[in-house]
């Protein structure tokens, strides 16, 4: 008898647990620390699925923002195009008007190319970029310039979006879904095999934000993620001298770092990208 009374409650408890287990966590921007250890943990390997709410956003979280700039560009390594950068800027506002808060999001996502363009006998899963390595280019860390200095840091919030309603093989930057999550983030200019999270104060660089998200169309670890998540940083970008300019396309504003996770050649690639003024 006692068991029969308990069963509905036990079932209800299990149902509640199951509900929480599969419901997407509440979206939350992460505010990066400006002092002390620079790196915070988001969802490192082995990945927690579904992911924790830390820094995790969806497109609905951008509903108060207006897209004001969008571009795409080749990612070129040793003269070989290994992927595509999608770079965007949103401002807080309504309709077509940015509001006076000067709140801007600069977001980026990349897609690594899958079409081989090299020689017969090389890796058929990607355009091989090195004459001495058969590996596809893997981005382990993304760095981008942000407002602030080490002496006078400017608050930066970070978020990431895994994608939309598409699949991992989609070609649309909004719909496509990333496979691998944002693992770590912080204000540093160091990445894989250069720093061990959470790092120390000597690893801090308040002029940069680092996103740690492995992106590789044919990853030697066996789990491919052709798309990175959307990697977003939100800051106050003031009206530069009253010119109405809050952001610009900056030289060397983004850096991709292949850190050699599976003995690949450590490689830095710097390129143009949007940057807060």
């Amino acid at each position: 008898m006692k068991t029969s009374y308990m069963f509905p409650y036990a079932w209800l408890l299990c149902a509640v647990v199951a509900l929480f287990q599969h419901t997407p966590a509440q979206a939350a921007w992460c505010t990066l620390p400006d002092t002390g250890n620079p790196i915070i943990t988001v969802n490192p390997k082995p990945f927690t699925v579904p992911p924790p709410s830390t820094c995790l956003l969806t497109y609905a979280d951008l509903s108060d923002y207006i897209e004001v700039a969008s571009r795409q560009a080749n990612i070129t390594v040793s003269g070989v195009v290994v992927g595509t950068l999608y770079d965007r800027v949103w401002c807080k506002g309504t309709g077509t008007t940015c509001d006076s808060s000067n709140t801007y999001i600069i977001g980026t996502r990349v897609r690594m190319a899958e079409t081989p363009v090299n020689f017969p006998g090389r890796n058929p899963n990607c355009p091989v970029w090195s004459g001495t390595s058969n590996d596809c280019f893997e981005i382990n860390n993304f760095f981008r310039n942000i407002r602030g200095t080490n002496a006078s840091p400017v608050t930066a919030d970070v978020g990431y979006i895994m994608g939309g309603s598409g699949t991992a093989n989609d070609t649309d930057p909004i719909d496509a879904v990333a496979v691998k999550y944002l693992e770590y983030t912080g204000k540093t200019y160091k990445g894989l095999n250069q720093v061990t999270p959470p790092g120390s104060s000597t690893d801090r660089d308040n002029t940069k934000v680092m996103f740690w998200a492995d992106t590789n169309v044919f990853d030697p670890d066996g789990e491919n993620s052709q798309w990175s998540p959307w990697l977003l940083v939100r800051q106050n970008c003031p009206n530069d001298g009253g010119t109405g300019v809050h952001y610009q396309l900056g030289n060397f504003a983004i850096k991709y770092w292949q850190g050699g996770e599976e003995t690949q050649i450590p490689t830095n690639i710097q390129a143009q990208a949007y940057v807060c003024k």
Partner: protein
Amino acid sequence: MTMRSRIALVLLVICGTGALAYLVRGRAEHPVTQRLAVPNAQQVVPPEVEPGARSNDAPAPAPPVRCAGQRVRVVIGGDEQDACFGETRTVQNGSVRLYEVEAMQGAQYSLRIEALGSAVLSAALRGGASLRFRCEKGDCRGIVIGRHDVEGVRTIALNNAALSEVRADGSPSPRAVATLTGELRTVPEDRLPALACAGQGVSVVTSDGSASTFCPNGGAGFEIGADGHRRYRFTNLDGASILIGVDDDHHARRVEYEGEEVLVCAAACRVRVSRYSAAGERTFTFEGTTLLEATMGQRNAVLNGTLIVPSL
């Protein structure tokens, strides 16, 4: 003919014969240095010694090496050597362009120059396993990357460019400086698959004879201005941009070229702007579009060709 005239004629014949013999002999002993042909790829010319120029008994010093490539004088601590480099190799990494030359013969140096457009980011000279010299940004002021000429070639002038010795670990060493003097020529970008235009591009011919092809290999996109209008931006791998401001009627209101200089068309610009295609692309056709230098208005550039902004 008088006796006096006969004597003068005989003296003239004797002097003329002597002068002719002197010239012939002098030419054999002091051969005139030949002007070298224009550097051409990896061709190596063997050293030549003129027959009869030296006594066979004398110990022969190393004959001067003719350089069919790109000759650069390298001075390290008072020791001068000529490096003979092969064709300039160009490699693009992100926004950084690497110009690299290797010695074909003579002193075995290699030289690497990293640049964004005409701005030198760094230069490094290597000789053998241990000799390393380097300069960065403002310290490389002796290296000047010129604009594209009519054939699309840039000249890299080395004007007593000073590179400081660095230790094997990369730290600077105060011991020595390498000074480079000479000239390198780049390969036109349209001959390099990684830099050549693929299906689109705009020729830019300036009033002072510079010519280049603008390829949007650095990216394409749009920005929305405070007035709500879109401004399309195309960038090349030199970091230069072409910007087209478009009004609600799909007309180009303003065209700008932002590079080593700023050139502008502020009104009635000859650019056709397409509607969006089914694929979401938009095409801009330049039909002799003339841009004026923004500050002095003394130079102009004429643009012809097509740029396509992809679906974004």
